[in-house]
Structures are given as C-alpha cells and as structure tokens.
C-alpha cells in the first residue's frame, strides 16, 4: 500500500528539500518504488537531485491534464525505482488546485510504494495542499529556538489541514537536521531531548550538520547516493528504514573531531 509522506517545516531553509531527496533515494535504494514530488514555491528539488537539465513538464501540467503523469515523471539516472515530478518554475501557483493535486496523488499511489512531497515552509499554498493528501508527515526541525517554535505551529496546522474525510489523525514524525555535535557538546545548541519534549513527536532521526550535504547538492546527487557511508547519509538511511517500520536504534551523532580528523584538518562529519 502506497504511503504519501509530506516533508514539512514551519521555518524555511531547515533542510526539507535535502531531506526529500535523501529519504526518497534511501527508500529507492532498498528497492521501493519512489516518486519525489516538488510542491515548493520555487523549483529546487530538481537541482538537488541533478535532474534540472531534463525537466520538460511539471506538476501543474499534470494537475491540469495537459500531459499524462507518466509523461512528466523524470526517472533518476542512478536509481531505476526513483522518479521526480518537478515543481512549476514560472507558472501561476493558483493553478495548483486541490482537485488537481488529489487526482495526481491518487494516481501516484497506484504506481509507487512511496510518494515523498517536498513542500514550502509554513502555511504557503503548496504546503497545505501537500499536507491534505498525506498519510505521514515528517516535520523537519533544526535544534534552534525559532525553528522549534515554528515547528510547533506547523504541527497544529497538520491536524487541522488533514483531509478530514479520512477521519483519522496524520502520522507525524520529527526529523532533527543540521545537528551539530560540537555545539551540542559546548551546550550552545538545543538538546535533542528538549526538542522532543517540547514538540512531543516520535523521533524519526537526527541528521548531523555536514559538508557532505553541500557537496552532494553541488554535484546534484542526494547525499544517500553521493556518499552512502557519510554520517548524514547513514542517518537518512536509518530514518528511511524507520519509515518502513523497521526498528533501528537511534544513532546519536557524536563529536568525531578526534585524532583522524585533526590529522587531516577535517571538521566533524
């Protein structure tokens, strides 16, 4: 049965697009059929996934029925079960209607095991549209006061905006990203336990702050594909397996600026 996941946040720039690409690729790496859909206001996911040169049709073409879903889906060049549906770059955002989105999501459900919806921050139109049709929400939060506050607001919204016809509450998970073990060690960053405590959502994973994420986006490859052994990739892969229902112990990112890193002048990955 297909699962529709909305990747959301209250505050912008916390790592939703990075997460959508990395989780989508991690799920596809286990053989699941995955469609990653860009609901964001500005097209970005195609760049992070390295498909920007191949976009012909976007989500709006499909919701409006101009082309078939299969004509707009872009297949990943590295993983054959991974597909992308790009966001509209220039066209009127109001063209994205609730009925249109409902139709596309229903059709995606038939073909894929997972539909990962990247969405804009906060209460933008694309965000609430994607939420309404999702079964699962991944609330991306940085361990930082304004991000936690805005996450709290989006969690309230998630319950309000969920398709009431389904008559059930949305399954919500907390994903902490850009976690910096060095700052945490110094006591300069909100503690993971405190964030969980404040937001009271089950924890899907803790993604460390890492240059690997930047490198992967430079190359146009989700971090889970670009460097599967890196700390952020492993954290994303674990999160993906938790989404699949596996019981994976939480790996707490630690400060690894030990002898190896010092020798090579490397920051903690």
């Amino acid at each position, binding site marked *: 049965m297909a699962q529709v996941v909305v990747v959301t946040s209250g505050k912008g720039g916390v790592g939703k697009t990075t997460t959508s690409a990395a989780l989508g690729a991690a799920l596809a790496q286990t053989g699941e059929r995955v469609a990653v859909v860009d609901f964001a206001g500005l097209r970005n996911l195609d760049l992070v996934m390295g498909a920007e040169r191949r976009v012909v049709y976007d989500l709006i073409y499909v919701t409006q029925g101009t082309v078939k879903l299969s*004509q707009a889906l872009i297949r990943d060049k590295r993983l054959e079960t991974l597909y992308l549906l790009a966001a509209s770059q220039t066209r009127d955002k109001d063209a994205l209607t609730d009925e249109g989105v409902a139709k596309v999501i229903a059709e995606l459900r038939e073909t894929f095991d997972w539909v990962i919806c990247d969405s804009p921050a906060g209460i933008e139109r694309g965000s609430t549209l994607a939420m309404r049709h999702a079964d699962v929400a991944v609330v991306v939060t940085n361990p930082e006061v304004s991000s936690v506050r805005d996450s709290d607001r989006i969690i309230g919204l998630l319950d309000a905006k969920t398709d009431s016809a389904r008559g059930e509450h949305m399954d919500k998970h907390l994903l902490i990203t850009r976690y910096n073990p060095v700052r945490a060690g110094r006591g300069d960053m909100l503690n993971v336990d405190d964030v969980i405590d404040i937001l009271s959502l089950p924890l899907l994973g803790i993604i460390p702050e890492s240059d690997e994420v930047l490198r992967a986006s430079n190359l146009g490859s989700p971090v889970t594909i670009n460097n599967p052994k890196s700390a952020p990739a492993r954290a994303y892969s674990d999160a993906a397996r938790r989404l699949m229902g596996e019981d994976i112990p939480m790996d707490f990112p630690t400060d690894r600026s030990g002898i190896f890193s010092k020798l090579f002048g490397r920051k903690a990955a």
Partner: protein
Amino acid sequence: MSWFMPFRRRKSASVARERLQILLTHERGADNHSNLIPLLREEVLAAVAKYVTVDVDKVQVKIDRGKEISLLEIDIEIPCDPEPSSLKRRDRTSRAARSQRLAVSSAH
C-alpha cells in the same frame, strides 16, 4: 596536511558552477521564454499525424540541456497498422508498435 581537501572542495564547487551556468543559460534563453519545446512538440506531432494516427498520450518528450547543444527527443508510438496504405508494407515488420525517435539539436 589538508592538501587534498581544498582540491576536493573545489571539485564539487566547480561542478556546481558549471551546472548553474548551463541551467541559467537555458532559463534566460530562448527555450524558456518562447515555449520552444511545446511548440516543437506540436509541430512535429502535426507533421507525423498527417500520415499516421498518433495517440498524444503515447508521446514522450525528453530533453537534455547541454552546454553547446541540447538534445530533444520526441518518442512517438506509431501503431502497427497505420491508415495510409503507402506505409503498410514497411511497418509490417514491426511487432506491437514502432517508435520513431527524432533528435533536435540546438546550439547555444
């Protein structure tokens, strides 16, 4: 000590730079503003439709935007038994359907 890191870093940054240059050239250029791809698709389809029945849902349009040239692929599925008899003989050899691929290169 850290001789290889700056090198590695420059590598991913230079890939990023090149990707952006290609993308922005296209986004600022003709193939973005004049709706070149939908237009080409329509005209090519119209030309093919003069001879065979084309199911627009079976048309796949792909593009690969490059630095010097872009590759536009229009895959049109043509049924085995097209109407005009002139095409019949040639197409008998095909199985379920034939796919005609058309590549258009555009310089930048």
